[in-house]
C-alpha cells in the first residue's frame, strides 16, 4: 500500500462542530429510514431470502445501521438475522500515522461467519480503505461464502477497486466537502448533512 494517502488531508473527527444546523441536509430522518428499507429489501432479494445471512456493522454507526436493517428484515421475513460488529482499527493502513487508537468492539454472532453471506454495513463509503481493512479483518475470523457491502452514503473518490452492493444514496461530493451522518442511537437524531 503506498503511504501517500488522501486520508492524511482529511479532517479529523470534527463531529461536535457539525451541529444539526450546520451544512445542508441531504437526508432527513424519513429519507434515511426509506433508504434503509430499500437496502433491506435489496439484500433479501439478492440473497434470495435471509438464509445464512450475517450483518456485520463497522463501528460505530455501521453497527447501528446493521441493527436497523436486521430489524427491517425481521419485519418482512419474521426471522432474526444475526448481527455483529467488526472493528478494523488494527487493520487500517494508516495505523502508524497517528497516535495509537482505542479499539472498538468486534462481536461475531454465535454462528460465526464461515460459509455465510456476510453483509458489511458502514455509514459512508469514501476511499474504500476501511472496507479493505474490513476484508482483512474478516479473513482472520473465518471464511464467508460471499461478502457484500451496504452503505448509507456513497460519496465517491475511491482509492481502491471497491464498490458497494447496496447504497442508500449516491452523493457526489468534492473532496473539500465533508459528509456527516447522525443517528438517533448515537447522536440523538437521524440525518445526513454535507458542508
Amino acid at each position, binding site marked *: 500500500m503506498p503511504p501517500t494517502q488522501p486520508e492524511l488531508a482529511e479532517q479529523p473527527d470534527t463531529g461536535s462542530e457539525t451541529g444539526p444546523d450546520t451544512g445542508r441536509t441531504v437526508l432527513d430522518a424519513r429519507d434515511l429510514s426509506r433508504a434503509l428499507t430499500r437496502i433491506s429489501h435489496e439484500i433479501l432479494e439478492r440473497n434470495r431470502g435471509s438464509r445464512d445471512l450475517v450483518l456485520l456493522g463497522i463501528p460505530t454507526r455501521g453497527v447501528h445501521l446493521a441493527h436497523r436493517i436486521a430489524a427491517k428484515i425481521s419485519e418482512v421475513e419474521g426471522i432474526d438475522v444475526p448481527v455483529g460488529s467488526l472493528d478494523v482499527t*488494527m487493520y487500517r493502513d494508516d495505523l502508524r500515522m497517528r497516535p*495509537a487508537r482505542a479499539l472498538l468492539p468486534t*462481536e461475531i454472532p454465535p454462528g460465526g461467519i464461515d460459509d455465510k453471506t456476510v453483509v458489511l454495513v458502514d455509514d459512508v463509503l469514501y476511499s474504500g480503505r476501511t472496507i479493505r481493512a474490513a476484508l482483512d479483518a474478516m479473513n482472520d475470523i473465518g471464511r464467508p461464502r460471499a461478502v457484500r457491502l451496504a452503505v448509507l452514503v456513497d460519496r465517491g473518490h475511491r482509492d481502491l477497486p471497491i464498490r458497494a452492493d447496496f447504497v442508500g444514496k449516491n452523493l457526489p461530493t468534492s473532496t473539500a466537502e465533508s459528509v456527516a451522518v447522525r443517528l438517533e442511537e448515537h447522536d440523538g437524531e437521524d440525518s445526513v448533512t454535507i458542508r
Partner: protein
Amino acid sequence: MKKHLLSAADLTRDDAELILETAEELRSLADRPIKKLPALRGRTIVNLFFEDSTRTRISFEAAAKRLSADVINFSAKGSSLSKGESLKDTALTLEAMGADAVVVRHWASGAPHNLANAGWSRSSVINAGDGTHEHPTQALLDAFTMTRHLAPEKGQGLDGRRVAIVGDVLHSRVARSNALLLHTLGAEVTLVAPPTLLPYGVDSWNVQTSYDLDAVLPKTDVVMMLRVQRERMNASYFPSVREYSRRYGLDARRMATLQDHAIVMHPGPMIRGMEITADVADSERSVIVEQVTNGVAVRMAVLYLLLGGAEPAITTGDTVPEPVEGSTGPTTGDGENDA
C-alpha cells in the same frame, strides 16, 4: 519521544481505563480461530530478563506474537560480578538491533528506570517487574480480572470496591503496583500482613493497613494472597510457617467468611499450604487461572497502545498527553469512517 511503562503511578485513570477497555476487546481474540492481529507487524520487541520468570516472559511473548511483532528473548541472567555493566551493555546491543520496545525484568529496583532514562537506548521500556519495586502489568491484569468479575457492565468501575492484599507486602512489587493502580481506579485497598512484612512508611500510601486478616475478610470484595517465601522465616519476619499460615493463610474456614460475590486472587507462583490452601486455590471463588489468561490480553493492550500508532495512546513516562479518538466520538465528521 520516549514512551515507557515503568510504574503503575505513571498511569492516569483515563490511561488505565483505556488499557482495560482495550484488553477487553483483545480478550475475545482467544476465542477466534486465528489468534493474531496485524497491529505490530514489523515491530521488534525484546524480552530482556535478568531474572527468571517463565510465566511473565511467556505472557509477554504470547501478547507480542498475537500482535504480529517480532520477538527476541534475551536472558541476561548470569554472573553477578559484571552485573553493573551488563544492563548498559545489553541496552546498547538492543539499541543496535533496533528494538522498538524492551520488556525488562530485573532483580534491581529501578533498573527499568535506568534503562529508560540513562540515555542508553531509544526503545520504549516496559517494566515486567523490578526488584521489590513494581510490576505494573501485573496490577493491570489484576484490575482487569477484578473488573470482569465485579463490574462486568460497560462503564462500571472499581470505585468503592474493597481489595485486601495479604502477605509479604514488604518484598512485593505486585502489592506496590496494585496499591497505586487500584487507588487510581477508585478502589479501597487494605494491606494485611504481620507488622514485620509491611514497608516502613506505609502510612503515607493511599491504603489502609491491618494486622488482622479475620477482621478484613468479611468486608472485602477481593482477597489477593501474596507469595511468602519460607526464607523470610530465617530472617525473623515471622516465627514459623505454621504460625504464619494460622494467622495470615487463606483456608476454607476463612474463605467461608467472605461475601458471596468475593473473589480470591494470587499473582503466582503459589505456595499451597503456606499462604493459601489447595482447596481455596482450586475453589470456585479462585480466579487464579483466569489471571493468567487475562495477562496476555492486558499485555497485548499495553503493547498495542504503546507501539501501535505513531505515538503511544497512553500518557506514561515523559510523554505529553495525547487526545485519543474514543469509541464514542461524536460523529463521523466528513465520512471519515472510511478513512
